[in-house]
């Protein structure tokens, strides 16, 4: 279905025409639009990026809107500004628009076009045709479709409702690959495959993006042994690993797994009796249920929620009264988890009745962006200044959503009226609107703005909140999120395993944090070993990776095992942290003054059993032969020798890691 005739540069088959050098015919085109046919050619050359003419002030007096958000202004900038001197209608090749990027004239951005290039010919053909803005009806781009045909990407634009009008826009798109080690795309959409793995290729055209997953397995899936899954999460995970040609790592040994569970769920170390019980009944669900009843579970996950919702902590050094206010909010989170409140109930309070968090910011736009990051896991902040090039949010949508957060004002005659956000450019009130996300249910009537936001986040069925929370909990337990950065869920930043994230989001839909944690820690995905393996296995979560304990976990584990006092201060940098461990009072005192160790030393019949007890207490395993040879002589120095051994263990890589 051809909509454009051959004279103008950008029709569905025009590039073949262009390649043969056919431009500038006399036939008037049936349909042409500067926005659809010319502007994308400039975008492909990077002309409208933030570092060139798309910058807020333009470049060299020539300003294009960033990523083509304002095509009419761009048309004016090219055809009318500077007295229309950017194009020369009598001698197209003499146009500034063509002479500068070909370096015929000085160009700050260097060479962007060559005369034998299709884009050059297209631009020239457009100018020769009189540089029209539009011929035929104005069309609305609805959808961009991307498929792969024999190692070449084909992008199709659908206009005016799917199926009515479409056009191949492959040569008008900008392409990029999410992982160039796997696949690269050239300007014409030709693919070059490299190493194994999965990568997404993206096409961008007129502010629309489309993506396509391209996968080359690490090993032929049919050669891999069948894995049986008796856990719903593992079924999804294993299917995905098989697709990728990866074999899951075997489960971690029981004592490693138990230590992982204790540190992850309650920030404590398992005792020898716990290890024996777990060996007798190696069911992580039973252990998780017990740990999740401990107050330290609520402490640990209360902290996680506080980080997720960006509730400031004392270390953020806010002024006194406000710092206390947020401490109260943090404490309430922990109490709510102890009571067993749902995640949705907790979030609802923060969005409606307990609004100190939101009102920390004066500007409604800051509040809207906080809700985006903290509750929905999306960064709408880019759209404050420009339509986002990598995400779906438009500037107007950002502002309308921000208007939902304007502070209420007193109403004449009593009561409060909803607040109003005035447009920063025009000064007119902005009609408030929720973000344009497809929801499963209709908003109830008669809600105030805060309640509408809470409905949108928690009950509209868009699952953004649940995906965000599931990803956060996954990251807390596995060391890395399925989506990273954690607050950056978007089409162009896909999850490592979308199916796993979608599955966990469904589990999180009930809002029961303990059920979600239990579901995760009872899976083979969580239980996988972190023993030696290839780095791509870790990247795809086929194998676990050891990670240093969070600082709070470390302190809680030391305090719990040795009845030691927490350190007086926490240094900021990683180097200062190591210096503080080596020379600060904290670890030395924990090793030298622990009453627990005094008792252990008194009760031990000999040095070998003392060492055994210390290793069981701190590392959840017996000492190896080399370790016995290293430490037994040191223990001859009485209590100080014991302090030396315990210090070395506490400061070691192994103690400080969750493996």
């Amino acid at each position, binding site marked *: 279905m051809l909509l454009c005739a051959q004279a103008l540069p950008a029709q569905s088959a025009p590039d073949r025409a262009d390649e043969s050098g056919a431009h500038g015919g006399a036939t008037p085109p049936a349909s042409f639009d500067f926005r659809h046919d010319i502007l994308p050619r400039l975008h492909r050359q990077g002309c409208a990026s933030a570092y060139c003419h798309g910058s807020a002030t333009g470049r060299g007096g020539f300003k294009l809107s960033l990523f083509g958000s304002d095509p009419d202004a761009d048309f004016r900038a090219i055809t009318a500004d500077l007295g229309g001197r950017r194009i020369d209608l009598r001698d197209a090749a003499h146009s500034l628009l063509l002479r500068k990027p070909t370096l015929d004239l000085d160009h700050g951005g260097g060479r962007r076009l060559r005369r034998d290039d299709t884009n050059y010919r297209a631009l020239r053909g457009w100018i020769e045709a009189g540089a029209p803005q539009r011929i035929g009806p104005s069309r609305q781009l609805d959808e961009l479709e991307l498929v792969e045909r024999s190692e070449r990407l084909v992008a199709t634009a659908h206009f005016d409702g799917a199926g009515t009008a479409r056009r191949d826009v492959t040569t008008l798109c900008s392409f990029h690959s999410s992982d160039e080690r796997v696949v690269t795309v050239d300007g014409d959409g030709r693919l070059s495959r490299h190493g194994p793995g999965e990568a997404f290729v993206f096409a961008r055209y007129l502010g629309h993006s489309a993506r396509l997953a391209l996968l080359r397995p690490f090993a032929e899936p049919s050669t891999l042994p069948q894995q049986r899954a008796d856990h719903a999460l593992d079924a999804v995970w294993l299917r995905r690993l098989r697709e990728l040609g990866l074999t899951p790592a075997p489960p971690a040994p029981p004592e490693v797994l138990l230590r992982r569970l204790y540190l992850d769920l309650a920030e404590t170390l398992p005792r020898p009796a716990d290890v024996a019980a777990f060996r007798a009944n190696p069911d992580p669900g039973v252990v998780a249920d017990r740990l999740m009843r401990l107050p330290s579970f609520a402490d640990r996950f209360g902290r996680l929620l506080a980080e997720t919702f960006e509730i400031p902590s004392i270390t953020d050094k806010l002024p006194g009264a406000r710092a206390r206010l947020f401490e109260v909010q943090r404490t309430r989170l922990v109490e709510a988890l102890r009571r067993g409140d749902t995640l949705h109930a907790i979030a609802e309070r923060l969005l409606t009745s307990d609004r100190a968090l939101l009102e920390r910011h004066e500007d409604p736009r800051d509040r809207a962006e906080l809700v985006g990051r903290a509750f929905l896991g999306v960064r709408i902040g880019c759209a404050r200044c420009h339509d986002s090039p990598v995400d779906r949010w438009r500037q107007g949508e950002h502002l309308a959503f921000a208007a939902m957060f304007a502070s209420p004002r007193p109403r004449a005659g009593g009561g409060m009226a909803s607040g109003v956000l005035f447009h920063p450019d025009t000064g007119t009130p902005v009609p408030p609107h929720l973000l344009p996300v497809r929801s499963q249910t209709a908003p109830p009537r008669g809600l105030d703005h805060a309640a509408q936001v809470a409905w949108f986040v928690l009950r509209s069925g868009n699952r953004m909140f649940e995906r965000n929370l599931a990803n956060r909990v996954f990251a807390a337990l596995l060391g890395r999120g399925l989506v990273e*950065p954690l607050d950056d869920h978007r089409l162009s930043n896909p999850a490592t395993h979308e199916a796993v994230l979608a599955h966990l989001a469904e589990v999180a839909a009930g809002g029961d944090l303990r059920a979600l944690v239990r579901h995760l820690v009872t899976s083979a995905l969580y239980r996988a070993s972190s023993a030696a393996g290839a780095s791509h296995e870790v990247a795809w979560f086929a194998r676990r990776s050891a990670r240093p304990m969070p600082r709070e976990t470390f302190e809680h584990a030391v305090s719990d095992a040795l009845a030691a006092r927490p350190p007086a201060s926490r240094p900021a940098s*990683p180097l200062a942290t190591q*210096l503080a461990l080596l020379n600060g009072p904290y670890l030395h005192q924990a090793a030298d003054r622990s009453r627990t160790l005094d008792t252990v030393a008194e009760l031990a019949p000999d040095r070998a059993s003392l060492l055994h007890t210390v290793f069981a207490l701190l590392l959840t395993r017996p000492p190896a032969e080399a370790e016995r040879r290293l430490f037994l002589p040191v223990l001859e120095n009485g209590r100080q020798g014991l302090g030396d051994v315990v210090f070395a263990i506490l400061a070691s890589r192994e103690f400080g890691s969750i493996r």
Partner: protein
Amino acid sequence: MNPVPPELATPCTRRDLLGAMASLPLLRLFDHPTFGTPARRGNRKAWILVWLDGGASHLETFDCKPEAPPDIRGDLKSIPTRADGVFFGEPLGRLAKLMDRMTLFRSITHGEGQHDRASEYLLTGHRPSPVLHHPFLGVVHALGRSEDSAIPAYVAIPDAPTHGREGFLPAARGPFEVGGNPGRPDFRVHDLAPRQRTPARSTLLRQLDALDGAPRSPSEATRDAFLAQALRMTLDPKTRAVFDLGAEADAVRQRFGRHQLGQSCLLARRLVQHGSRSVLIRDVGWDHHRDIKRAMTYGFPPKLTALDQSISALVEDLERHDLADDVMVVVASEFGRTPRLNPSGGRDHWPRAQSVLAFGAGLARGAVVGSTDRKGEAPASDAISPADLHATLIAALGGDVGQTLRAPNGRPIPVVEAGGRPVRGALR
């Protein structure tokens, strides 16, 4: 009783440990995937930023207006300098005499009137953005260090301001903060001196770590590198001595001034001599909303006197050590101050005009760049944005103005904000 091999029978001596440590891995900055284009290798240039926290008045320091009416020029007298038409505040006599060797920017201008936002702009060279916090220029420059050194590449004395940090780069690139006042006789870097049991215990620790056969994850490798650096800093007396001002002759310490700023400058010189690439000295108390003359000339020591003594000592000291071509000194703050005195005799925030005094490396000696109008309100010639200033400083440090860093989302971020260009007149 188990038989024990003799080398394990007693905790190692410190000498053994130092020998073993020579083989420890240090952070390989270039192996980090943060860099789009690697910073230039082998560039040994360093710089010291003296950050006048709060916004130092340009009209009392480096851009005095002796001809202006009293409510503009203020109560502080001014003196001529070795540069034509440039007047400094009266207590800055020594700096005035050095003006033929230093570089003065008088026409820095921007639009950020709040401390926090203006500090972010001046320290990072990028306008504050709600989506991305850029790293401090000192962090970016320190990334270029390729040689193995136990001295941290970027040190803050006593600590770094909020925006003097790593921004979107990994926390490992952040400052090492010495955490104390070098002007005090009992000054010690926090947790640097080993405790009595540290040498023996850290030997055991290294041996235990060496027995750990588990594969090291990248985050564990980072921990190992910092532990190795901490051990070298704390156990190697030569490295530790870099932080010890007692190693300097009394006359030298006296010349810098026995106060926080002076001794901080001396410590900064010792650090850049021994491997630091960037040192930030944070001098607080320049937010003079009331009685500005008194605030700048009273106290122990008076602010301007301390500034004059410390910076002039640092410049002369660098020249004496033949470091002037390798080490740059920059004296800057977040904005200038209102040209008209307010009713309390102070000056308020004024981002439209401010001065930056600099010296050394690739900067032109004795250059005065730009000027402000008669009242010191706005640039009269050669307006310089913070981005231009950064481009100039990067060029003077032998860096690549076109370098890009990679933000966490993979976006390439130019080190110099769009539009920033080196000020040619300020470069040699």
